[in-house]
Structure formats: C-alpha cells, structure tokens
C-alpha cells in the first residue's frame, strides 16, 4: 500500500496547469510575432523567387533555376518549422491542461504523478524549441545523413511526452480497476459559475463551427485547390518555355500565373488557418471553463476574461478568412483577436498563480 503523498509531491495538477497555460500563451505570442514579422514577408519572397525561376526557365539557365529553388526551399523550411513550433507548443499546452484535469483519476503515487508531469513539460518544451532550431542547426555534426541534431532532440521531446502520457494512462487504468489509495490530490469540484458556463457553451459552438467549416472546405475546395496548384505550375513552366526562343521575351503571362498561384496558396492557407484556429480556441475555451476553480480572481474579473477570450476566439479565425477580401485591415483585426486571447490567458494565468501550492486552498482574498 502506498503512503499518502506530501504536499510537495502533490503539485502535479498545478505544474501542468501553469505549464499548460504558459505553453499556450507562449505559442500564441510566438504565432502572432511570426504572423506579423515573418509570414507575409516570407510569402512575398517565395513569390519573387518563383518569378525569378520562370525568368531562368525562359533564359534556359538551369543553374539559376536550381539556385532559385534552393532559396525557395529554405524559405519554405523556415515557414514550416515555425508553424510546427507554434502548433506543437499550443497543442502540448492543451494536453497539459487536460492531464491536469485528469489528475484526480490517475491512481499513482503523488511523487510519480509529479515526475510524469515534469517529464511531460520537459518534452513539451523540448519538441517545439528543437523544431524552431532545425533551420539554424541544420546537419552540423549530425551522425545521420538526413536528420540533424535539432530534429533528433525534437523527436526525443515527442518520445518523452509519449512516455508521460503512457504513464498517465496506466494511472487511469488502475483507477478504472478500483485503485484509489493514492488520490489525496485536488478533488476540487468543477466550477459551475457564469464564466465557466459561457466558456463551455461557447467553446463547444466554436468547435462545431470549425468542424462544419473544415468539412465544407474538404468537400468543396481542397481537391480543387490541389488540382489548380498543379495546373498553375504546369502553365508557369509552359509559358516560360514558350518565351525561350522569342526575339524579345514577354514574361507577362508567366508572371501572371505566378500571381494566380500565390492566390491559390493564400486561399488554402487562410482556410486551413481559420479551421485550425477556431477548433483550437474552442478546445481552449472548454479547458479554461474546467479550470476556473483554480483561478483565484473575483467573479467579475473571471467574466471579463471569459468574454475577452471568446471575442478574440471568434475575431481571429473570422478575420483570417476575410483577409483575402478585406486585405490588411482584416489581418490587423485578426492579429488583435489573437492578442485578446493572449491577454485573457495571461489574466487567468495570474489567477492560477495567486493560488498557493496547496490544492484546494485559496490563501489571500480574491481581487
């Protein structure tokens, strides 16, 4: 029979909640900075690279084509690794919050639960940071031909998170088999206040909206975009080849196709971004609804943060979708929506940090 865990050992929930919200807020701040300072500039450079590649095709200059695509590949890798870091950081944050909520049902010793929580947080930080570094570390000193040290550490981070989740699953399994002896930790009931209810209902509606949008996009637009993508590239090459033997080259058609190709990519990107963000914000809203009992703030502040969170959660995906029609104004509103979510998250994180380390206790008065 295991002994009851001491207070120091029973902080798995708190570690996972603080770590989870910090990961989500960090991932969102990183995403906002990336969107404002890198994303659009990078896309423009890729467009310029493709225009230069069509010019090189028309000039029959294979070496220039290769150089242009090396540059485009580097920019795509830059974009891909940063998007991956952003997505993984936020998703691990979600999973950390979920694991925190499951702690009352994980029938393991307090110390084991804390170790698992630490292992998960280490993996959850290691993976996105390593993914971010892939572009900068490259293959330097790597023992493998195609995978660099940053990728190896990213995979190791993923493995640590998998091991931690497997441990939590074992605890849940033990609970389902009747083990209860170690569960002194944090059995605070779920908050059923106004903020929690609004976040729960709003979050579910956001997820439903995201699913319907995703299904609509997959059925009506995805394959069409993929086909258009290939046709645009073929036309780009054909239009450039047509100019190879012309006495005075006219690259207008080829360049127009590059612009059209950029439009297809933008349409795909905004649809996927809107779909993933609305579902992520829905999940986040539900998760925040479930941790309201850990937020030591006055009810009016809880309501304020909940409303701000939901306004941002609707504004960001909606205005990302409208970006192609309304341009930079919509982009600015979408970024402001992201900022609202970040502010609400930081507000709630402050409330969680105000709680003492002892689960269930609420030292100090609510603000």
């Amino acid at each position, binding site marked *: 029979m295991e002994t009851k865990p001491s207070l120091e050992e029973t902080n798995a929930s708190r570690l996972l909640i603080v770590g989870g919200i910090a990961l989500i807020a960090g991932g969102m701040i990183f995403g906002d900075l990336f969107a404002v300072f890198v994303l659009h500039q990078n896309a423009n450079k890729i467009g310029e690279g493709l225009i230069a590649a069509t010019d090189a095709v028309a000039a029959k200059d294979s070496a220039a084509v290769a150089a*242009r695509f090396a540059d485009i590949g580097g920019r795509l890798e830059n974009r891909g690794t940063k998007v991956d870091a952003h997505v993984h950081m936020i*998703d691990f944050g979600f999973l950390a919050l979920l694991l925190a909520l499951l702690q009352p049902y994980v029938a393991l010793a307090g110390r084991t639960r804390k170790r698992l929580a630490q292992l998960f947080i280490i993996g959850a930080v290691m993976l996105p940071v390593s993914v971010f570094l892939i572009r900068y570390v490259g293959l330097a000193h790597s023992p493998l031909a195609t995978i660099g040290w940053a990728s190896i550490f*990213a995979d190791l981070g993923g493995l640590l998170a998998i091991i931690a*989740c497997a441990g939590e699953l074992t605890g849940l399994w033990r*609970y*389902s088999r009747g083990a209860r002896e170690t569960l002194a930790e944090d059995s605070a009931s779920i908050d059923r206040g106004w903020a929690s209810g*609004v976040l729960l209902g709003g979050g579910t509606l956001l*997820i439903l909206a995201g699913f319907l949008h995703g299904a609509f996009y997959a059925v009506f637009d995805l394959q069409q975009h993929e086909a258009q993508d290939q046709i645009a590239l073929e036309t780009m090459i054909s239009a450039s080849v047509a100019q190879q033997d012309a006495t005075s080259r006219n690259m207008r058609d080829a360049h127009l196709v590059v612009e059209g190709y950029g439009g297809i990519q933008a349409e795909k990107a905004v649809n996927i971004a809107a779909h993933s963000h609305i579902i992520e914000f829905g999940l986040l809203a539900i998760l925040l609804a*479930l941790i309201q009992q850990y937020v030591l703030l006055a009810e009016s502040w809880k309501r304020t943060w909940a409303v701000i969170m939901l306004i941002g959660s609707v504004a960001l995906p909606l205005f990302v979708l409208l970006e192609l029609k309304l341009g930079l104004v919509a982009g600015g509103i979408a970024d402001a929506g992201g900022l609202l979510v970040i502010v609400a998250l930081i507000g709630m994180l402050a409330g969680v940090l105000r709680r003492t380390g002892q689960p269930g206790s609420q030292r100090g008065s609510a603000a």
Partner: protein
Amino acid sequence: MSGSRKLLIISGLALALWGMSFGLYYALAVEHQTLDKIGSSLATSFTHGAKGDLLAARESLQTYADAQYDYVRSVDVHSHWIGLAMLLIVFGVVFDRVSFPESRRMLLALMLVVGSVTFPLGVLLQTLDRGFLPQAVAAFGAGLVIIALAVIALSFASNERD
C-alpha cells in the same frame, strides 16, 4: 466515474498516444524523405523546363503533386487524431454536464470515439487509394463527430438556459 466518461477519457488518452506515436514514426521514417521529394521534384520540373523538355517537366510535376498530396494528408491525420483525442478527454471530464440519461450519453460517447478514429483513418487511407471508399470512411467519421458535437452543444445550451 460513469461508463461514458471512462470510455471518453481512456479512448482519448489512447488515441492521443496513438496520434503522437504516428507523428513520431512519420517524422523519423517518412517526413524528411517526402519533403526532399517534394522540393527536388518541383525544382527538377523547372530545370526540365529550362532545357525545353515539357514532357519531363510534367512528369516531375506529377511526382511533386503526388508527394504533396500524401504529405498534406499524413500531417492532417497526425494533427486530427491528437486534436480529436483532446476533444474526447475534455468531454470525458465534463460529460456529467450533458443533460441526458447515461444510456444516451454512452451512445454519444461511442459516436465521438468511433468518429474520432475513423475520420483520420479515412484520410490516411486516401494516401493508399484515392477512390470512393476512403473518402466514405472519412465522411462517415466526420459526420459522427459533427452530429455528436451538435447534440452536446444543444445540451450545454439548454443547461445554461435552465
């Protein structure tokens, strides 16, 4: 803990583990090679164009499009399995607030679990066969999840009104 909650939480955590393991396998064994293939086939198509060989350029573009098709779906499967797993766990924690009898909650939970497994599975099968069946599997799974979600949202909404 009720049976429906147990089903959602344990299936959710198992699906999250499965989704992460799939991602780890894909990153280690497939992703780098696929990205290389996507990049090199696109560059090669333009190089063939520079040499005036449109037929070879088209072939390379087809290789690019096929690799891109598989890559997009594989990454989607990874993220959707984990995303849906989180949804299962979160609903598992809060499922007592769905105002239905346990038998109906169990049915909703089953719909969510089956849909969460089959929807990404159908998408993954599309990388092996682009025919009707994988699309039908994906649509069936997505349909189950959407219906269950709509019923749960209605239940939460009626709770709040009460």
